[in-house]
């Protein structure tokens, strides 16, 4: 016999419970996404301005030297800072970032050794399990990122670079487009280079501003500014990844909620059919019983 009405009822209740959880997670992700976006927005003036200043300093003070500007030669060790989430339940978000990192490593045709600095538990667990060269990890960063965390990570990778444990450093994170779309991105951060259009602008500026004053001098300013620039890049990438994570979770949980409500509909229909079948069977039993009595009575 087909499943009884009670079985369906139990099943529907369970799916409904799951749906309530996914719905709540979706709403929470939506709220957190908005906050993460606001933070990313708020960090933009700082990062943008710092980038301009660095570009101008580098363009105007060509002779100035700093370990973070210096190119290493030959390049033997390349470090990837992979920024993932600490938690799952956000669709293919973590998998996409990890895949991007692996892709970048395998596409590098130079004879280099790849190292991983994992930011976020999901990335750390993945790369550690597969025996990658782990240079460091930062986990349990929480939903409320602050600049101090980025500073720590920035200091850490600057140190790797200065000690020669890394000859190039890349960030791998999810660029946030909207809640439905996050693009895994690889960005080179060390040695420090500024984007071309900003460099061109800065060089143009340098021609007309020979009387720029440095207080106390270019070297001191580079020492103070370059690590901060690196940190601001890390901070920016972390904020983007965080917004992407919440966006991905919101979408994933929205889909889960839709699927669950569809399942409830299907199950309700099946349950009604089963109930109808049971009633029909009962009526047939009664009427055939009555029929039998009638015949027997004669």
């Amino acid at each position: 016999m087909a499943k009884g009405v009670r079985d369906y009822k139990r099943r529907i209740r369970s799916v409904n419970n799951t749906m309530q959880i996914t719905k709540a997670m979706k709403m929470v992700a939506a709220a957190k996404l908005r906050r993460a976006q606001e933070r990313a927005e708020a960090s933009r003036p700082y990062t943008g301005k710092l980038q301009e200043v660095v570009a101008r300093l580098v363009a105007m003070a060509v002779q100035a030297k700093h370990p973070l500007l210096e190119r290493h030669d030959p390049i033997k060790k390349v470090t990837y800072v992979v920024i993932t989430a600490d938690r799952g339940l956000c669709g293919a978000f973590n998998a996409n970032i990890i895949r991007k990192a692996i892709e970048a490593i395998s596409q590098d045709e130079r004879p280099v050794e790849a190292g991983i600095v994992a930011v976020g538990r999901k990335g750390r667990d993945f790369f550690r399990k597969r025996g990658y060269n782990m240079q460091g990890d930062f986990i349990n960063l929480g939903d409320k990122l602050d600049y101090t965390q980025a500073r720590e990570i920035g200091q850490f990778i600057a140190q790797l670079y200065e000690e020669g444990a890394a000859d190039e450093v890349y960030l791998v994170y999810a660029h946030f487009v909207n809640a439905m779309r996050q693009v895994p991105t690889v960005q080179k951060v060390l040695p420090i280079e500024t984007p071309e259009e900003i460099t061109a602008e800065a060089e143009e500026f340098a021609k007309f501003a020979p009387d720029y004053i440095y207080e106390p001098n270019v070297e001191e300013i580079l020492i103070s500014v370059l690590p901060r620039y690196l940190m601001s890049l890390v901070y920016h990438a972390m904020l983007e990844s965080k917004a992407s994570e919440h966006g991905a979770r919101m979408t994933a949980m929205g889909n889960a909620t839709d699927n669950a409500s569809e399942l409830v509909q299907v199950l309700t229909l099946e349950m009604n059919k089963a109930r109808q079948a049971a009633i029909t069977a009962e009526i047939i039993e009664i009427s055939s019983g009555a029929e039998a009595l009638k015949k027997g009575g004669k």
Partner: protein
Amino acid sequence: MAGNTFLLEVVTPERIALSEEVKFVVVPAMEGELGILSNHAPIVAGLKIGVLRYTQPNGEVHYMALSGGLMEVIDNEAKVLAETAEHGREIDLLRAKAAKERAERRLAERKDQISYVRAQMALLRALARIKASELERGGYSGY
């Protein structure tokens, strides 16, 4: 009044802490305080942990605690980029004083190099915040 004010912006990774026309600003540059009036020559200055003070067009003076960074002045605009910046009136004086005592205790412990340097920085930040807060309230006791 036109001509003797300029735009002062104080920007941190978390927010734009200040953006207004001012007459005069003094920042804690690496080699001492540095005052900027309008139409200053282009300059980039490294900043240390300390107190920034600015004078509004109406003559009012306000104070902010900065935790290092840099300032750039071009085209009559002064931009201060700092890791943190707090208005004197926002600062919780009791907390700042507690932070100062904590840092002093850590310094007295003299554990290892790194925590020593960290405690030193924390102490400087706490002192800057206390100073900015007390100056803003007009009751600077001096440290």
